Each structure stands twice: as structure tokens, then as C-alpha cells.
């Protein structure tokens, strides 16, 4: 069943979200012609399809689009090519020899072969079980993304008096969306002393609707036998332990959880690809190639992004990388520079750079671990050499940072590069 020309593709992309679409289109533009995208949902576009609010595309298209519009642009681009998309199709396995096991109702179970593969499965939401909220287990506890799907795609209201735990972007967006739809959003409760969401979402989704945000608070008990009937919220001390006497009881019928996103990498792990414990995604090179030659990864499957524009950018890197791999046009210079997270930096993507394979410049994404309200510096060092020092007025874990390294800067670098944050008065 495998090995035949019919079942062999230059590139197989797993996932038709923004990362997968951008990757496939880029690979097409770079000359690959037999490309297949496999998508488990019944429509292409990934999670953007249910993100009907605007604010997408400010960087990439220089205009403000809704999620479906942003996805639509890439779906249109893909349609103008010969890229094949299989919808309502699940990938069950990706093997180290680049076989892709897929299944759907039309073609049945098939084993395809990719000269290159791009993994773009996106991410999933952390759930109640992962954070262990005490109390009963009634109906009415939804992750924010599931509630968004129910509301925006299926057309159902999940509840009318809503408490939101976590101030991730989807939770914030849902606070506004549910309010506009007629529900009462009682509060947004955040465990940390700062929000994990974008500042613009705090302002536009909470402040503008007078929804209180309780920082350093959490839900300590969910109540209700069959359906949620309430929740107890408490303030947390510096060790994140509830402070007795600070109990507030909310009379809600619904609890939304926006408590983090985790890259979806079951296929990646099964394929034996090396993972990064920090990002929960694959370890990648500058062109998003993984530890398995010819297999690339991009988008939220590699690390969780805030902005789709950067997902697109990462998809394009992977698409170009896959094209170069298949066409054999890669530079064979074998120098590899490792990137390391220094002071207050949580991780970097990519984790390795091969100067021989990068263009004139390569971007490095990372997140800081704490909020910096005072100006400070991003220091990029290799051994005792400071390659670059960049000033930032403000940084927060909720806003991904991006820096550029040029080929020139990396020319004489042999040791690993460390990215750290230094206080503003350090220099």
C-alpha cells in the first residue's frame, strides 16, 4: 500500500491551521509540487475559524482581520496552487521513515509517504484535571476554547452567569464575547500576580466591560451537584497558598478555564523526535527541522504563540526548509550553535541554529519569566562576547519576544549563545 508513486508526496503537512497552510503555500512557492495537507476538522483554518473577533494580521497583512478572514486569505492562496487538502482526516501515526498513517471515511486507512513532513498540529488547552481544582464535578465547567467553539460555531450559549479562571487570551476574548451575547461575566480570576494575556485584551475585553480582574486569586472550590451553582475564590499569598478569611463566593452557573495551552505533540513523541521539556514542543533548528531529518515542525505545536502573524512566519520557515530538504539545495556546512536561556528567559525557539542553512538573518523567539515594568536589556552572549544588547521598555511573560540574529553576527561564534535579561542600570 505504501511506496507507490501515487502515495508518495514531496511534502505532507499535518494540520491545516495557519501554520500548516503557510508552510504548504511557502513550499509550493519554493518549487515543491506534490503537497498534501491533512486536517482532522471538517474545515481548514484551524482554531482561527472560531476566533471571530478581530485583531489578526496587524503584522503580516498590516491590517486588522478576524480569525476566519485571516485563515481565508491562506486558504485562498492554497486553492490557487495544486496543494491537495484532505479534510475530516486523522493522522494516526508518523514514523521515523516518514510514513504517514491516515484515516478518513472516504479513503479509509492509508499509509502515505512524505519526502518531507511538517508537523503543525497546534495546541490544546490545559484542563481542570491538570490544575486540580477542588470541589464537585458538575456540568458547566468548560475550557475557554471549547466554550468558544460552542458559541461561535455551534451557536449555543454554555451558561448565563460566568466566572473565568485564568487570564489567558482566549479567556479574555470569551469574557467580552459572552457579555455581548447576553451572559453576565462575574469576574476573571488569575493565579499569578500578572495576567498571561495581551495588554490590549485586558483593556478591550475586561476594562471596557467593567469585568473585575482578581490577580493572585484562584478558585478553591467548585460547587454544585449536577450543574455548577457557585464557586469560592480566595486570595493567594506569595507562596500561592490561599489566605484564610479572603473567601469570596460567586453565584455562577458556568466556569470557564483559560489556564494555559500545551503544544499537541503525541505524533511527534511517537515518531521519536527529541522534545523540549520547556516548550513541550519539538526541539527545532532555525528552519524548524526537528531531530528527525526531513521532518519539520511549526506554529503552536512547537511553542505557544500569542500572535498568528508569527505562526505564519514560522510556517513559512518550515515550508522553505522542507523544500530545500527535498530539492537537496541545502548548505551542508555542519556548524551548529546551541541557544540557551539565561537569566529570566523561559526558553528559546529555535533551540539550535545552523548558520550554513539560515538566510541573512534568523529570528529567535522567547518568553521572559517575570514582568519587567522598568526598561531593561536583552543580552545575547556567546562565551565572553556580547553579540548584541537590545533595550526594551517593558516585557511580560504574556508577550512573546522576538530578536534577530544576522549571519554576520554569527560568523565567528563557536560556543553556545545565551540569551538573558539584565536590569536597566546594568550598563
Amino acid at each position, binding site marked *: 500500500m505504501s511506496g507507490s508513486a501515487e502515495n508518495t508526496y514531496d511534502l505532507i503537512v499535518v494540520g491545516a491551521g495557519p501554520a500548516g497552510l503557510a508552510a504548504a503555500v511557502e513550499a509550493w512557492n519554493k518549487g515543491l509540487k506534490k503537497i498534501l495537507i491533512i486536517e482532522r476538522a471538517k474545515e481548514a483554518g484551524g482554531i482561527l475559524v472560531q476566533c471571530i473577533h478581530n485583531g489578526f494580521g496587524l503584522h503580516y497583512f498590516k491590517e486588522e482581520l478576524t480569525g476566519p478572514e485571516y485563515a481565508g486569505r491562506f486558504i485562498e492562496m492554497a486553492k490557487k496552487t495544486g496543494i491537495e487538502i484532505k479534510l475530516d482526516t486523522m493522522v494516526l501515526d508518523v514514523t521515523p521513515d516518514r510514513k504517514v498513517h491516515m484515516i478518513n471515511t*472516504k479513503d479509509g486507512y492509508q499509509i502515505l509517504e512524505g519526502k518531507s513532513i511538517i508537523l503543525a498540529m497546534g495546541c490544546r488547552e490545559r484542563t481542570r484535571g491538570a490544575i486540580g481544582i477542588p470541589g464537585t464535578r458538575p456540568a458547566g465547567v468548560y475550557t475557554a476554547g471549547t466554550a468558544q467553539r460552542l458559541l461561535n460555531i455551534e451557536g449555543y450559549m*454554555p451558561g448565563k452567569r460566568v466566572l473565568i479562571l485564568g487570564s489567558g487570551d482566549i479567556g479574555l476574548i470569551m469574557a467580552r464575547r459572552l457579555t455581548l451575547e447576553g451572559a453576565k461575566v462575574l469576574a476573571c480570576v488569575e493565579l499569578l500576580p500578572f495576567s498571561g494575556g495581551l495588554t490590549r485584551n485586558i483593556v478591550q475585553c475586561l476594562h471596557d466591560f467593567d469585568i473585575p480582574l482578581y490577580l493572585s486569586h484562584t478558585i478553591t472550590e467548585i460547587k454544585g451537584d449536577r450543574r455548577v451553582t457557585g464557586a469560592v475564590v480566595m486570595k493567594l499569598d506569595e507562596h500561592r497558598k490561599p489566605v484564610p478569611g479572603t473567601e469570596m463566593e460567586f453565584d455562577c452557573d458556568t466556569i470557564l478555564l483559560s489556564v494555559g495551552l500545551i503544544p499537541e505533540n503525541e505524533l511527534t513523541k511517537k515518531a521519536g523526535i527529541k522534545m523540549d521539556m520547556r516548550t513541550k514542543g519539538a526541539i527545532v533548528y532555525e528552519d524548524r527541522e526537528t531531530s528527525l531529518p526531513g521532518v519539520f515542525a511549526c506554529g503552536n505545536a512547537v511553542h505557544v504563540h500569542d500572535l498568528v502573524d508569527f505562526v505564519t512566519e514560522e510556517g513559512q520557515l518550515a515550508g522553505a526548509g522542507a523544500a530545500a530538504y527535498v530539492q537537496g539545495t541545502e548548505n551542508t556546512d555542519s556548524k551548529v550553535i546551541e541557544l540557551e536561556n539565561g537569566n529570566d528567559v523561559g526558553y528559546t525557539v529555535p533551540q539550535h541554529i545552523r548558520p550554513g542553512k539560515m538566510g541573512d538573518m534568523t529570528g529567535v523567539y522567547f518568553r521572559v519569566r517575570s514582568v519587567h515594568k522598568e526598561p531593561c536589556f536583552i543580552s545575547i552572549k556567546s562565551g565572553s562576547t556580547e553579540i548584541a544588547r537590545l533595550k526594551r521598555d517593558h516585557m511580560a511573560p504574556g508577550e512573546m519576544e522576538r530578536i534577530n540574529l544576522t549571519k554576520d553576527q554569527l560568523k565567528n561564534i563557536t560556543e553556545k549563545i545565551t540569551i538573558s535579561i539584565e536590569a536597566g542600570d546594568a550598563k
Partner: protein
Amino acid sequence: MQYDVAVIGCGVIGAAAAYSLSKYKLSVTILEAENDVADATTKANSGILHAGYDPEPGSIMADMNIKGVKMAKELCKKLDVPVKWPGSLVVAFSDAEMKTVKQLYDRGIKNGVKNMEILNGSQVHAMEPALSTEIKGALLAKDAGVVYPWEYALALAETAVRNGVELRRNFKVNQITKQGKDGYMLKSESGDFVTAKYVINAAGVYTDFIHNLVAPPAFKILPNRGEYYLMDKTEGNLVTRVIFQCPTEKGKGVLVSPTARGNLIVGPNAVDGKKDYTGVTRSGLDYVEEYAKKSVPSLDLRASIRNFAGVRANNDQNDFIIREAENAKGFIDLAGIKSPGLTSAPAIGERCVELLDKAGLKLEAKKVFIDTRKRIKFTDLSVAEKQELVKKNPLYGRVICRCETITEGEIIDALRAPIPPVSVDGIKRRCGTGMGRCQGGFCGPRVMEILMNEAHISYRDLVMDKTGSYMLEGVTKGQEGDNL
């Protein structure tokens, strides 16, 4: 019509009784209070099939345990119930606990348990490298198993139904009256009633309440809550056997064990509670964490996918209560069936038939008794079998639950089975949808849609689990009045 037998409660005990009764030419009805089978203690416990060294020799418990664990081997195979037989270790952290281990061994010998061995510390660590280096030794019992308890109960109930037993759901018995010289009338909270010559009281934590409706109080249920962590399948091989600590008066202590479905289960604590409260508490979970890490220090609870709690139906006596009630002819109590109740279930079912026989019920074996059950579990099939299956029915080619790889075909199978689910969690328990790491975040809306379409349920009546656990509040603006 008057039934020969009415079974109150369709947990694993009621289901096992109904299964045993369905082998005979009898009219049997099961009266279940909830909208699905096994919706209380049976669905929330450790899922262990105990080898039988725990119960006091000579007790009913010891007898039922030993018989039950043997029967489970064959039953699970015939009825296609997920089960594994990894064996168990009772670990000891001190010389005093090594004495307990020795006592358990001796008890096991008296009870007739085979394949036991006392191990020293290095033997234990060679077998289970993740266990604490503080462990001095352990009792190994090779004949202990892990079963998916909910499916065990469903398989028994479903087989009973296929053999002619009737199941009435949402029938919460709250009144029983004696009728003439034999027989009972059982009334439900909502006013329905049935009559039966014989009654089996398998109402779990409510067995005392049910008993007291017809007979003078003879025992009391002391509900005791146990809280758990269920871990991602990534943790499923952290230990390969059921790891117990030495039992105390409070119970068998906190265990760490692989589950029949490949997850890792951690718990329970033991807290006196209410019959119906199955919430978890911070202090309870912290207790479970502390004790579990005593056995397995490297346990990483960040891989938890769910917390839950169940209520043990402890009684105020030291043994299972399996007997005809005083002053109530033909009324059999199956009460206080705490651990090893799950293990004992099929033996209790058989005992129940014996008691009914003694009480005068005429038993005649059926000529045809369906004693096998087979269901399709897509993910367990080989590639060739999967290819064949999808060719036959394309719905097996649509994966609904991506974490557990559950197909639409399997969900439709469940919805057309003898005891179809009526809730999203009913599908979850039968098929596994939403049991994985995303906990239904992705498949939830699709399962809801399939359930509404296939069972012709309106969104207004869609429930997550029990009656009243509604999921949707309404439709979005502009849709009101639409025919959804």
C-alpha cells in the same frame, strides 16, 4: 405484571446479581435510580481485583473475594472487559510493617491465595525501580488484577439485558410495601411502581435506607469518601504492578497502580462523608500526594488529567451483609459491600441466587444463555483489521476523540447497544471519548452533536451526566425560535 425478582440498584453488585439471575427462566427487573448504570461507587474506585490476602479468614468477605477473583478471569475474557493481571505489592517501610506483610501472607495462605511471595528490598527494587529506596520489603501477590470497573458493571448488566432482564432507569425507589403473603410493591420517587415476589437490595450507599423501608434497622452504612488522581497515559508505566502500602484500620491506604486502560491511578484517602458528596478537597489531594510519593518519590502530579472521588459503602459491621432481611421474606440485602466488593461482585451474584433458592424461588436454567460479548475497540486493532473495518463501515474512519483515538463508529455502536447512553459522560464511560489528556475539550462538542442527532435529544435536554446536569443554556442571539 409481577416480576419474579426486582433488583434495586445497578452498580456492579446489582449488575452481577442480575447477570446470575438471567441464567434462569425468571422475570427480572433492575431499578436504577440514575439515568445510567454504575453511576456511583462502581464508577469511582481503584479498580483493583484483589488476590484475597486482606480479609479475615473465615469471613464472608474472604470467601467472596477468593471466588470472585477467580470468576473475574473468565468473565472479563468472555464479556470483553478491559482487564490486566499485573500482580500487586504491599510494601513495607519498617520492620514493624514487615511483620504486617508476614501477617498478610499468612492470612492469604489461610484464605487459599496462591502465588504469593515475601520479597526483600532489593528484590522489590529490581521489579519496580521507581519505588522508594526506603522500602524494606513487600508481599507480592501475582494473582491481583486491574479492571475498568465501570465497564465490568456494564458488561454484566448488558449481558443480563440481552438475556431478558429489564432495566428501568431513573427509578429511585423510595417506598416498598409488602403485598399479601409474598411479594413487594416498589414505588419510585416519581410515582412509578413495580411488583416483585423477591427483592435484591443492591442500592450501595443507600442499602440501609432501602432495608429500613421493609424491615427493622439492622445495619447502618457509614459512607466514606476516597479521592484520586488519574494520570496521563504517559505515566502508565511508572510502576508495573499495583503498589499498596500496609493497610491500617482506615483501609488499604494510598495506592499507585496502572489502570486497565493504560493510565496511572493514585489514591485514595479515606474521609467520613455523605452518601452523595463526591467532591475532592485540597487537603484530601495533598494527603494522597504525600502518601503516594512515599511509595513512588518520582511521581509527577503535573501529568494529572483528572481528580475524582468515590464513596465507599462501609457498614457498621465487620463483614459484607449478604442475607435475607429479618421479617422480610424474600428480601435479600447485599449491603456494606466495600473493598474488595468489586472483586467479589460475581461471587456475590451467585450467592444471591443461592439465597433466593433457599427462600423458595423456583430456579430452572435457561437452555439458551448468551454468555459472550464483543465490542469493537478501534485503537486495539491491527492496521490490517482497521483497514478492513473502515471498508465495511466508513464511520470507523472518522476519529472523534483524538487523544484516545475513538471513532464515530464506536460511538454509534454504543448508542445502539442494549443499554444505550443518554449523556455525554455515558458515551465517555462506554467509548473513552474525553478520557484523555484534553478531557473532551476537542471532542466534547462533536460528541454532543452525535448524541443529540442519534438519540433525538434537543439541546435543552442534553446532559453531561446525571439528570439535571444540563450543558447548554440556550442558543446565541438571532437564533431564538429557530428549530434547533
